[in-house]
Protein backbone atom coordinates (compact mmCIF):
# COMPACT_ATOMS: atom_id res chain seq x y z
CA UNK A 1 0.00 0.00 0.00
CA UNK A 2 1.46 3.30 -1.10
CA UNK A 3 1.35 6.16 1.41
CA UNK A 4 -1.43 8.66 0.75
CA UNK A 5 -0.42 12.30 1.03
CA UNK A 6 -3.39 14.24 2.44
CA UNK A 7 -3.79 17.86 1.37
CA UNK A 8 -3.61 18.75 5.04
CA UNK A 9 -0.17 17.12 5.36
CA UNK A 10 0.92 18.70 2.06
CA UNK A 11 0.00 22.24 3.05
CA UNK A 12 1.37 21.96 6.60
CA UNK A 13 4.73 20.88 5.21
CA UNK A 14 4.60 23.49 2.44
CA UNK A 15 3.98 26.30 4.93
CA UNK A 16 6.48 25.08 7.53
CA UNK A 17 10.05 24.61 6.23
CA UNK A 18 10.99 22.79 9.46
CA UNK A 19 8.68 19.90 8.59
CA UNK A 20 9.88 17.09 6.35
CA UNK A 21 8.57 16.52 2.82
CA UNK A 22 5.51 14.27 3.13
CA UNK A 23 6.25 10.57 2.63
CA UNK A 24 4.92 9.49 -0.77
CA UNK A 25 6.08 12.55 -2.72
CA UNK A 26 8.60 11.28 -5.21
CA UNK A 27 10.62 12.10 -8.31
CA UNK A 28 10.49 10.14 -11.57
CA UNK A 29 12.84 7.57 -10.02
CA UNK A 30 10.31 6.87 -7.24
CA UNK A 31 12.67 8.29 -4.61
CA UNK A 32 11.78 11.05 -2.10
CA UNK A 33 12.06 14.49 -3.71
CA UNK A 34 12.46 17.30 -1.14
CA UNK A 35 13.87 19.80 -3.62
CA UNK A 36 10.95 19.21 -5.97
CA UNK A 37 8.54 19.72 -3.07
CA UNK A 38 10.32 22.97 -2.20
CA UNK A 39 9.15 24.43 -5.54
CA UNK A 40 5.69 24.66 -3.97
CA UNK A 41 7.06 25.99 -0.66
CA UNK A 42 8.77 28.72 -2.63
CA UNK A 43 5.92 29.49 -5.06
CA UNK A 44 3.37 30.00 -2.28
CA UNK A 45 5.47 32.33 -0.16
CA UNK A 46 7.04 34.27 -3.04
CA UNK A 47 3.68 34.93 -4.72
CA UNK A 48 2.08 36.09 -1.48
CA UNK A 49 5.08 38.31 -0.69
CA UNK A 50 4.59 39.90 -4.09
CA UNK A 51 0.96 40.55 -3.20
CA UNK A 52 2.12 42.20 0.05
CA UNK A 53 4.73 44.29 -1.77
CA UNK A 54 2.14 45.41 -4.32
CA UNK A 55 -0.35 46.21 -1.58
CA UNK A 56 1.91 48.02 0.88
CA UNK A 57 4.63 49.84 -1.10
CA UNK A 58 4.99 52.71 1.40
CA UNK A 59 5.35 50.35 4.37
CA UNK A 60 7.94 48.39 2.38
CA UNK A 61 9.83 51.56 1.57
CA UNK A 62 9.78 52.80 5.19
CA UNK A 63 11.23 49.60 6.67
CA UNK A 64 13.45 48.56 3.76
CA UNK A 65 13.27 45.44 1.61
CA UNK A 66 14.93 42.96 3.99
CA UNK A 67 12.82 43.97 6.98
CA UNK A 68 9.61 44.00 4.92
CA UNK A 69 10.34 40.56 3.48
CA UNK A 70 10.96 39.12 6.95
CA UNK A 71 7.88 40.79 8.41
CA UNK A 72 5.69 39.67 5.48
CA UNK A 73 6.99 36.13 5.81
CA UNK A 74 5.78 35.93 9.41
CA UNK A 75 2.48 37.63 8.58
CA UNK A 76 1.76 35.30 5.62
CA UNK A 77 2.48 32.13 7.61
CA UNK A 78 0.25 33.31 10.46
CA UNK A 79 -2.44 34.84 8.25
CA UNK A 80 -2.67 33.11 4.88
CA UNK A 81 -5.34 34.61 2.60
CA UNK A 82 -8.87 33.49 3.41
CA UNK A 83 -10.04 34.10 -0.15
CA UNK A 84 -8.56 33.91 -3.67
CA UNK A 85 -9.20 37.65 -4.14
CA UNK A 86 -5.64 38.77 -3.42
CA UNK A 87 -6.51 42.38 -4.27
CA UNK A 88 -8.07 42.52 -0.81
CA UNK A 89 -5.40 40.49 1.04
CA UNK A 90 -3.73 42.12 4.04
CA UNK A 91 -6.72 43.69 5.83
CA UNK A 92 -5.30 42.52 9.17
CA UNK A 93 -1.73 43.68 8.40
CA UNK A 94 -2.09 47.02 10.29
CA UNK A 95 -3.11 45.18 13.48
CA UNK A 96 -0.28 42.70 12.94
CA UNK A 97 2.22 45.58 12.65
CA UNK A 98 0.86 47.13 15.87
CA UNK A 99 1.78 43.92 17.71
CA UNK A 100 5.04 43.30 15.83
CA UNK A 101 7.76 44.26 18.31
CA UNK A 102 10.65 44.69 15.87
CA UNK A 103 8.62 47.52 14.26
CA UNK A 104 7.87 49.24 17.57
CA UNK A 105 10.37 52.03 16.82
CA UNK A 106 8.13 53.15 13.95
CA UNK A 107 4.85 53.85 15.80
CA UNK A 108 3.22 55.34 12.70
CA UNK A 109 3.82 52.22 10.56
CA UNK A 110 0.47 50.66 11.49
CA UNK A 111 -1.37 53.77 10.29
CA UNK A 112 0.58 53.89 7.01
CA UNK A 113 -0.46 50.27 6.41
CA UNK A 114 -4.06 51.18 7.30
CA UNK A 115 -4.00 54.09 4.86
CA UNK A 116 -2.56 51.95 2.05
CA UNK A 117 -5.19 49.28 2.67
CA UNK A 118 -8.02 51.84 2.77
CA UNK A 119 -6.93 53.29 -0.59
CA UNK A 120 -6.67 49.81 -2.12
CA UNK A 121 -10.08 48.85 -0.74
CA UNK A 122 -11.62 52.04 -2.14
CA UNK A 123 -10.09 51.26 -5.56
CA UNK A 124 -12.17 48.05 -5.76
CA UNK A 125 -15.41 49.40 -4.25
CA UNK A 126 -18.66 49.45 -6.16
CA UNK A 127 -19.27 52.37 -8.52
CA UNK A 128 -21.82 54.99 -7.47
CA UNK A 129 -23.38 58.05 -9.05
CA UNK A 130 -22.72 61.21 -7.00
CA UNK A 131 -25.36 63.91 -6.56
CA UNK A 132 -25.08 66.97 -8.78
CA UNK A 133 -22.80 69.52 -7.06
CA UNK A 134 -25.61 72.08 -7.54
CA UNK A 135 -27.59 70.15 -4.92
CA UNK A 136 -25.26 71.58 -2.27
CA UNK A 137 -26.54 75.08 -3.09
CA UNK A 138 -29.85 74.17 -1.41
CA UNK A 139 -30.62 76.70 1.36
CA UNK A 140 -31.62 73.81 3.65
CA UNK A 141 -28.44 71.79 2.98
CA UNK A 142 -27.48 71.73 6.70
CA UNK A 143 -30.74 69.95 7.56
CA UNK A 144 -30.14 67.19 5.00
CA UNK A 145 -28.97 63.68 5.76
CA UNK A 146 -26.32 62.28 3.41
CA UNK A 147 -25.53 58.91 1.86
CA UNK A 148 -21.94 58.09 0.94
CA UNK A 149 -20.47 56.29 -2.04
CA UNK A 150 -19.14 52.85 -0.98
CA UNK A 151 -15.54 54.05 -1.57
CA UNK A 152 -15.73 56.76 1.12
CA UNK A 153 -14.10 56.14 4.50
CA UNK A 154 -12.35 58.06 7.26
CA UNK A 155 -9.24 57.19 9.27
CA UNK A 156 -7.64 58.70 12.39
CA UNK A 157 -3.92 58.94 13.08
CA UNK A 158 -1.67 60.43 15.76
CA UNK A 159 0.84 61.12 12.95
CA UNK A 160 0.89 63.05 9.65
CA UNK A 161 0.31 59.73 7.95
CA UNK A 162 -0.69 61.01 4.49
CA UNK A 163 2.59 62.94 4.32
CA UNK A 164 4.58 60.00 5.69
CA UNK A 165 3.14 57.83 2.94
CA UNK A 166 3.90 60.41 0.27
CA UNK A 167 7.47 60.81 1.57
CA UNK A 168 7.95 57.03 1.56
CA UNK A 169 6.94 56.97 -2.10
CA UNK A 170 9.44 59.71 -3.01
CA UNK A 171 7.69 62.92 -1.94
CA UNK A 172 8.85 65.67 0.43
CA UNK A 173 9.56 65.03 4.11
CA UNK A 174 6.49 65.16 6.41
CA UNK A 175 5.73 68.05 8.73
CA UNK A 176 2.94 68.49 11.24
CA UNK A 177 1.26 66.04 13.57
CA UNK A 178 -1.96 64.14 14.13
CA UNK A 179 -4.61 64.17 11.42
CA UNK A 180 -7.81 62.54 10.27
CA UNK A 181 -7.98 61.30 6.70
CA UNK A 182 -10.89 61.32 4.29
CA UNK A 183 -10.73 58.69 1.53
CA UNK A 184 -12.73 59.53 -1.60
CA UNK A 185 -12.69 58.16 -5.14
CA UNK A 186 -13.32 60.82 -7.76
CA UNK A 187 -14.04 58.64 -10.81
CA UNK A 188 -11.66 55.66 -10.48
CA UNK A 189 -8.57 56.76 -8.52
CA UNK A 190 -8.90 56.99 -4.71
CA UNK A 191 -7.30 59.92 -2.89
CA UNK A 192 -6.53 60.58 0.76
CA UNK A 193 -7.10 64.11 2.05
CA UNK A 194 -5.83 65.18 5.49
CA UNK A 195 -8.02 67.23 7.88
CA UNK A 196 -7.62 68.21 11.55
CA UNK A 197 -8.09 65.48 14.13
CA UNK A 198 -11.77 65.08 14.94
CA UNK A 199 -12.95 65.42 11.34
CA UNK A 200 -13.59 61.68 11.09
CA UNK A 201 -16.25 62.19 13.77
CA UNK A 202 -18.25 64.14 11.18
CA UNK A 203 -18.15 61.17 8.79
CA UNK A 204 -19.24 58.84 11.62
CA UNK A 205 -22.13 61.20 12.48
CA UNK A 206 -23.21 61.41 8.84
CA UNK A 207 -23.12 57.61 8.60
CA UNK A 208 -25.39 57.60 11.67
CA UNK A 209 -27.78 59.84 9.67
CA UNK A 210 -27.37 63.00 11.73
CA UNK A 211 -28.28 66.07 9.68
CA UNK A 212 -25.31 67.67 7.91
CA UNK A 213 -25.31 70.75 10.18
CA UNK A 214 -25.34 68.74 13.42
CA UNK A 215 -22.64 66.41 12.12
CA UNK A 216 -20.38 69.36 11.31
CA UNK A 217 -20.88 70.78 14.79
CA UNK A 218 -19.51 67.49 16.14
CA UNK A 219 -16.28 68.17 14.21
CA UNK A 220 -13.15 70.01 15.33
CA UNK A 221 -12.77 73.73 15.70
CA UNK A 222 -10.57 75.19 13.01
CA UNK A 223 -11.86 72.83 10.32
CA UNK A 224 -11.75 74.53 6.92
CA UNK A 225 -15.40 73.83 6.18
CA UNK A 226 -15.39 74.91 2.50
CA UNK A 227 -12.33 72.71 1.91
CA UNK A 228 -14.02 69.76 3.65
CA UNK A 229 -17.28 70.17 1.71
CA UNK A 230 -15.27 70.77 -1.45
CA UNK A 231 -13.46 67.45 -0.95
CA UNK A 232 -16.79 65.66 -0.51
CA UNK A 233 -18.15 67.24 -3.70
CA UNK A 234 -15.06 66.88 -5.89
CA UNK A 235 -14.56 63.35 -4.58
CA UNK A 236 -18.04 62.33 -5.67
CA UNK A 237 -18.55 61.20 -2.08
CA UNK A 238 -22.25 61.96 -1.66
CA UNK A 239 -24.79 59.84 -3.51
CA UNK A 240 -27.97 61.11 -1.87
CA UNK A 241 -29.24 64.19 0.02
CA UNK A 242 -32.52 63.71 1.89
CA UNK A 243 -34.69 66.35 3.53
CA UNK A 244 -37.27 64.11 5.27
CA UNK A 245 -36.58 65.79 8.59
CA UNK A 246 -37.36 69.36 7.52
Amino acid at each position, binding site marked *: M*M*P*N*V*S*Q*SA*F*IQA*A*MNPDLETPH*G*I*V*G*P*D*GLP*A*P*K*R*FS*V*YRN*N*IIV*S*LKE*AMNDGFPAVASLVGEAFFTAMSDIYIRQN*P*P*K*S*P*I*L*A*LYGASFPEFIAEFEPAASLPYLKDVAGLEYALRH*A*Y*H*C*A*DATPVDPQAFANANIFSATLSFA*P*SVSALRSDYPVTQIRTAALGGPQPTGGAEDILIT*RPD*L*DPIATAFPSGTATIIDALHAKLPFGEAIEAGPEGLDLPAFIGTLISGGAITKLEYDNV
Partner: protein
Amino acid sequence: MTRSINSLPKGVGVGYKPQHFSDILNDPAPVTWLEIHAENYMGAGGRPLAQLRALSDKFPISVHGVGLSIGSEGRLDPDHLARLKHLNTWLEPASFSEHLAWSTHDMGFYNDLLPLPYTETTLKTVGDHIDEVQDNLGRQMLLENPSSYLAFAESSMDEIAFLREVTKRTGCGLLLDVNNVFVSATNLQMDARAYIDAFPLDKVGEIHLGGHDEDEDDHGAPLLIDSHGREVADPVWALFAHTIKKGGVKPTLIEWDTDVPDWSVLVDEAKRAVAHLSPVPA
Protein backbone atom coordinates in the same frame (compact mmCIF):
# COMPACT_ATOMS: atom_id res chain seq x y z
CA MET B 1 -27.83 21.64 -20.27
CA THR B 2 -24.50 23.22 -21.08
CA ARG B 3 -23.61 25.57 -23.88
CA SER B 4 -21.06 24.79 -26.59
CA ILE B 5 -17.38 24.41 -25.79
CA ASN B 6 -16.44 28.05 -26.31
CA SER B 7 -16.59 30.78 -28.89
CA LEU B 8 -12.97 31.98 -28.87
CA PRO B 9 -11.62 32.82 -32.33
CA LYS B 10 -9.07 30.38 -33.71
CA GLY B 11 -6.41 33.04 -33.54
CA VAL B 12 -3.92 34.30 -30.97
CA GLY B 13 -4.80 35.91 -27.64
CA VAL B 14 -2.70 37.27 -24.79
CA GLY B 15 -3.08 37.30 -21.03
CA TYR B 16 -4.36 40.80 -20.24
CA LYS B 17 -2.32 43.02 -17.90
CA PRO B 18 -3.69 46.44 -16.87
CA GLN B 19 -0.45 48.22 -17.89
CA HIS B 20 -1.24 47.29 -21.52
CA PHE B 21 -4.80 48.67 -21.50
CA SER B 22 -4.19 51.68 -23.80
CA ASP B 23 -1.73 49.81 -26.05
CA ILE B 24 -4.25 47.04 -26.67
CA LEU B 25 -7.02 49.44 -27.60
CA ASN B 26 -4.69 51.55 -29.77
CA ASP B 27 -2.85 48.77 -31.57
CA PRO B 28 -3.84 45.17 -30.85
CA ALA B 29 -1.72 44.03 -33.84
CA PRO B 30 -2.35 40.30 -34.39
CA VAL B 31 -4.11 39.80 -31.04
CA THR B 32 -7.75 38.82 -31.57
CA TRP B 33 -8.85 37.90 -28.03
CA LEU B 34 -7.83 38.38 -24.39
CA GLU B 35 -7.69 36.21 -21.31
CA ILE B 36 -8.16 37.44 -17.75
CA HIS B 37 -7.66 35.77 -14.39
CA ALA B 38 -11.13 35.59 -12.87
CA GLU B 39 -9.95 36.45 -9.35
CA ASN B 40 -8.59 39.85 -10.45
CA TYR B 41 -12.11 40.93 -11.42
CA MET B 42 -14.06 39.98 -8.35
CA GLY B 43 -14.03 43.38 -6.68
CA ALA B 44 -17.30 45.29 -6.50
CA GLY B 45 -16.36 47.94 -9.08
CA GLY B 46 -13.77 50.58 -9.91
CA ARG B 47 -11.13 50.66 -12.60
CA PRO B 48 -10.56 46.88 -13.05
CA LEU B 49 -14.20 46.24 -14.00
CA ALA B 50 -14.48 49.48 -16.01
CA GLN B 51 -11.43 48.49 -18.09
CA LEU B 52 -12.66 44.94 -18.51
CA ARG B 53 -16.03 46.20 -19.77
CA ALA B 54 -14.29 48.47 -22.29
CA LEU B 55 -12.11 45.61 -23.52
CA SER B 56 -15.03 43.20 -23.75
CA ASP B 57 -16.74 45.63 -26.13
CA LYS B 58 -13.86 45.07 -28.58
CA PHE B 59 -12.50 41.59 -27.89
CA PRO B 60 -13.82 38.14 -27.02
CA ILE B 61 -12.72 37.44 -23.43
CA SER B 62 -11.62 34.13 -21.95
CA VAL B 63 -12.11 33.92 -18.17
CA HIS B 64 -9.40 31.75 -16.65
CA GLY B 65 -9.87 30.88 -12.98
CA VAL B 66 -6.85 30.36 -10.74
CA GLY B 67 -8.56 29.98 -7.35
CA LEU B 68 -11.50 27.59 -7.56
CA SER B 69 -9.44 24.65 -6.27
CA ILE B 70 -11.17 21.99 -8.34
CA GLY B 71 -8.68 19.41 -7.07
CA SER B 72 -9.55 20.00 -3.41
CA GLU B 73 -10.35 16.95 -1.27
CA GLY B 74 -13.11 19.00 0.35
CA ARG B 75 -16.08 20.77 -1.20
CA LEU B 76 -15.81 23.78 -3.50
CA ASP B 77 -16.15 27.16 -1.80
CA PRO B 78 -19.78 28.17 -2.44
CA ASP B 79 -18.90 31.88 -2.05
CA HIS B 80 -16.22 31.62 -4.71
CA LEU B 81 -18.51 29.71 -7.03
CA ALA B 82 -21.12 32.45 -6.57
CA ARG B 83 -18.52 35.12 -7.45
CA LEU B 84 -17.58 33.18 -10.59
CA LYS B 85 -21.22 32.90 -11.57
CA HIS B 86 -21.65 36.64 -11.06
CA LEU B 87 -18.63 37.43 -13.26
CA ASN B 88 -19.78 34.93 -15.87
CA THR B 89 -23.28 36.46 -15.99
CA TRP B 90 -21.99 40.04 -16.07
CA LEU B 91 -19.30 39.50 -18.71
CA GLU B 92 -20.73 36.62 -20.79
CA PRO B 93 -17.20 35.50 -21.69
CA ALA B 94 -16.35 33.44 -24.75
CA SER B 95 -14.79 30.73 -22.60
CA PHE B 96 -14.28 29.66 -18.98
CA SER B 97 -11.38 27.51 -17.88
CA GLU B 98 -9.78 26.30 -14.64
CA HIS B 99 -6.92 24.06 -13.54
CA LEU B 100 -6.45 20.45 -12.55
CA ALA B 101 -5.00 21.56 -9.22
CA TRP B 102 -5.95 22.73 -5.72
CA SER B 103 -5.11 25.92 -3.85
CA THR B 104 -7.56 26.13 -0.95
CA HIS B 105 -7.45 24.08 2.21
CA ASP B 106 -9.29 24.54 5.48
CA MET B 107 -10.30 28.14 4.66
CA GLY B 108 -6.78 29.15 3.63
CA PHE B 109 -5.95 30.17 0.04
CA TYR B 110 -2.36 29.31 -0.89
CA ASN B 111 -2.09 31.07 -4.29
CA ASP B 112 -0.40 28.26 -6.16
CA LEU B 113 -1.58 25.42 -8.35
CA LEU B 114 -0.89 22.48 -6.07
CA PRO B 115 -0.70 18.91 -7.40
CA LEU B 116 -2.93 15.93 -6.76
CA PRO B 117 -2.41 12.19 -7.20
CA TYR B 118 -4.31 10.45 -9.99
CA THR B 119 -6.48 7.81 -8.32
CA GLU B 120 -10.10 6.59 -8.49
CA THR B 121 -10.79 8.75 -5.41
CA THR B 122 -9.43 11.99 -6.88
CA LEU B 123 -11.09 11.19 -10.22
CA LYS B 124 -14.48 11.03 -8.51
CA THR B 125 -13.86 14.25 -6.55
CA VAL B 126 -12.64 16.24 -9.56
CA GLY B 127 -15.52 14.95 -11.69
CA ASP B 128 -18.08 15.92 -9.04
CA HIS B 129 -16.52 19.39 -8.72
CA ILE B 130 -16.58 19.97 -12.48
CA ASP B 131 -20.23 18.84 -12.61
CA GLU B 132 -20.98 21.39 -9.89
CA VAL B 133 -19.15 24.20 -11.74
CA GLN B 134 -20.82 23.46 -15.08
CA ASP B 135 -24.28 23.17 -13.47
CA ASN B 136 -23.70 26.43 -11.63
CA LEU B 137 -22.36 28.44 -14.55
CA GLY B 138 -24.69 26.82 -17.06
CA ARG B 139 -21.84 26.28 -19.49
CA GLN B 140 -19.11 23.87 -20.39
CA MET B 141 -15.69 24.57 -18.88
CA LEU B 142 -12.19 23.72 -20.03
CA LEU B 143 -9.80 21.95 -17.63
CA GLU B 144 -6.06 22.71 -17.94
CA ASN B 145 -3.29 20.12 -17.63
CA PRO B 146 -0.84 21.07 -14.84
CA SER B 147 2.90 21.66 -14.71
CA SER B 148 4.32 18.82 -12.61
CA TYR B 149 7.42 19.01 -10.45
CA LEU B 150 6.90 15.75 -8.58
CA ALA B 151 4.83 12.58 -8.55
CA PHE B 152 2.73 10.79 -5.93
CA ALA B 153 3.63 7.20 -5.15
CA GLU B 154 -0.08 6.51 -4.65
CA SER B 155 -1.11 7.49 -8.24
CA SER B 156 -2.78 4.58 -10.03
CA MET B 157 -3.21 6.08 -13.52
CA ASP B 158 -1.36 8.51 -15.74
CA GLU B 159 -2.42 12.10 -16.35
CA ILE B 160 -3.90 11.51 -19.79
CA ALA B 161 -6.01 8.57 -18.62
CA PHE B 162 -7.22 10.80 -15.77
CA LEU B 163 -8.08 13.73 -18.08
CA ARG B 164 -9.78 11.47 -20.62
CA GLU B 165 -11.98 9.97 -17.94
CA VAL B 166 -12.83 13.42 -16.51
CA THR B 167 -14.00 14.65 -19.93
CA LYS B 168 -15.99 11.44 -20.43
CA ARG B 169 -17.76 11.73 -17.06
CA THR B 170 -18.42 15.49 -17.08
CA GLY B 171 -18.51 16.54 -20.71
CA CYS B 172 -15.96 19.27 -19.98
CA GLY B 173 -13.41 20.34 -22.57
CA LEU B 174 -9.65 20.65 -22.10
CA LEU B 175 -7.18 23.49 -22.16
CA LEU B 176 -3.85 22.14 -23.39
CA ASP B 177 -0.92 24.09 -21.98
CA VAL B 178 1.94 23.07 -24.26
CA ASN B 179 4.55 24.67 -22.01
CA ASN B 180 3.16 22.66 -19.08
CA VAL B 181 3.52 19.49 -21.16
CA PHE B 182 7.17 20.33 -21.88
CA VAL B 183 7.85 21.26 -18.23
CA SER B 184 6.17 18.10 -16.87
CA ALA B 185 7.78 15.83 -19.44
CA THR B 186 11.23 17.20 -18.62
CA ASN B 187 10.67 17.07 -14.88
CA LEU B 188 9.17 13.58 -14.82
CA GLN B 189 11.41 12.23 -17.60
CA MET B 190 8.64 11.46 -20.07
CA ASP B 191 8.36 12.02 -23.81
CA ALA B 192 6.54 15.31 -24.50
CA ARG B 193 5.60 14.35 -28.08
CA ALA B 194 4.22 11.03 -26.92
CA TYR B 195 2.09 12.97 -24.40
CA ILE B 196 0.71 15.19 -27.17
CA ASP B 197 0.13 12.16 -29.41
CA ALA B 198 -1.88 10.44 -26.67
CA PHE B 199 -3.79 13.59 -25.65
CA PRO B 200 -7.48 13.79 -26.63
CA LEU B 201 -6.90 16.77 -28.93
CA ASP B 202 -10.51 16.70 -30.13
CA LYS B 203 -11.52 17.91 -26.65
CA VAL B 204 -9.10 20.86 -26.68
CA GLY B 205 -10.80 24.26 -26.82
CA GLU B 206 -7.71 26.36 -26.14
CA ILE B 207 -3.92 26.13 -26.10
CA HIS B 208 -1.59 27.97 -23.70
CA LEU B 209 2.01 28.95 -24.41
CA GLY B 210 4.28 30.52 -21.80
CA GLY B 211 7.86 30.76 -20.61
CA HIS B 212 9.61 28.64 -17.98
CA ASP B 213 12.73 28.88 -15.82
CA GLU B 214 15.42 26.22 -15.45
CA ASP B 215 16.64 24.70 -12.17
CA GLU B 216 17.95 21.32 -10.95
CA ASP B 217 16.38 18.64 -8.76
CA ASP B 218 17.89 16.81 -5.74
CA HIS B 219 20.11 14.72 -8.00
CA GLY B 220 21.21 17.38 -10.50
CA ALA B 221 18.57 16.47 -13.10
CA PRO B 222 16.88 19.39 -14.90
CA LEU B 223 13.87 20.82 -13.07
CA LEU B 224 11.86 23.33 -15.09
CA ILE B 225 9.66 25.88 -13.32
CA ASP B 226 6.48 27.18 -14.97
CA SER B 227 7.18 30.84 -14.25
CA HIS B 228 5.43 32.72 -17.10
CA GLY B 229 8.15 35.36 -16.91
CA ARG B 230 9.92 35.16 -20.27
CA GLU B 231 9.60 34.24 -23.95
CA VAL B 232 8.28 30.82 -24.96
CA ALA B 233 11.27 28.46 -25.26
CA ASP B 234 12.25 27.07 -28.68
CA PRO B 235 11.47 23.41 -27.87
CA VAL B 236 8.00 24.53 -26.70
CA TRP B 237 7.42 26.25 -30.06
CA ALA B 238 8.43 22.99 -31.75
CA LEU B 239 6.01 21.04 -29.56
CA PHE B 240 3.31 23.61 -30.37
CA ALA B 241 3.94 23.11 -34.11
CA HIS B 242 3.63 19.35 -33.60
CA THR B 243 0.37 19.85 -31.68
CA ILE B 244 -1.17 22.04 -34.40
CA LYS B 245 -0.11 19.61 -37.10
CA LYS B 246 -1.77 16.77 -35.23
CA GLY B 247 -4.85 18.44 -33.78
CA GLY B 248 -5.45 21.44 -36.03
CA VAL B 249 -5.56 25.14 -35.27
CA LYS B 250 -6.94 26.10 -31.83
CA PRO B 251 -7.38 29.42 -30.03
CA THR B 252 -3.86 30.00 -28.69
CA LEU B 253 -2.81 32.17 -25.75
CA ILE B 254 0.52 33.78 -24.90
CA GLU B 255 0.85 33.90 -21.08
CA TRP B 256 3.29 36.31 -19.43
CA ASP B 257 2.44 36.93 -15.75
CA THR B 258 5.69 37.93 -13.99
CA ASP B 259 8.24 40.58 -15.05
CA VAL B 260 5.57 41.69 -17.52
CA PRO B 261 7.26 43.24 -20.58
CA ASP B 262 6.25 46.10 -22.88
CA TRP B 263 3.30 45.47 -25.17
CA SER B 264 5.62 45.24 -28.21
CA VAL B 265 7.36 42.18 -26.72
CA LEU B 266 4.03 40.41 -26.26
CA VAL B 267 3.06 41.37 -29.79
CA ASP B 268 6.26 39.74 -31.08
CA GLU B 269 5.38 36.53 -29.23
CA ALA B 270 1.84 36.70 -30.60
CA LYS B 271 3.18 37.17 -34.15
CA ARG B 272 5.36 34.10 -33.71
CA ALA B 273 2.29 32.11 -32.66
CA VAL B 274 0.30 33.45 -35.62
CA ALA B 275 3.07 32.29 -37.96
CA HIS B 276 2.61 28.76 -36.57
CA LEU B 277 -1.17 28.90 -37.07
CA SER B 278 -0.91 29.97 -40.69
CA PRO B 279 2.27 28.39 -42.08
CA VAL B 280 3.63 29.59 -45.40
CA PRO B 281 2.79 26.92 -48.00
CA ALA B 282 5.82 24.92 -49.11
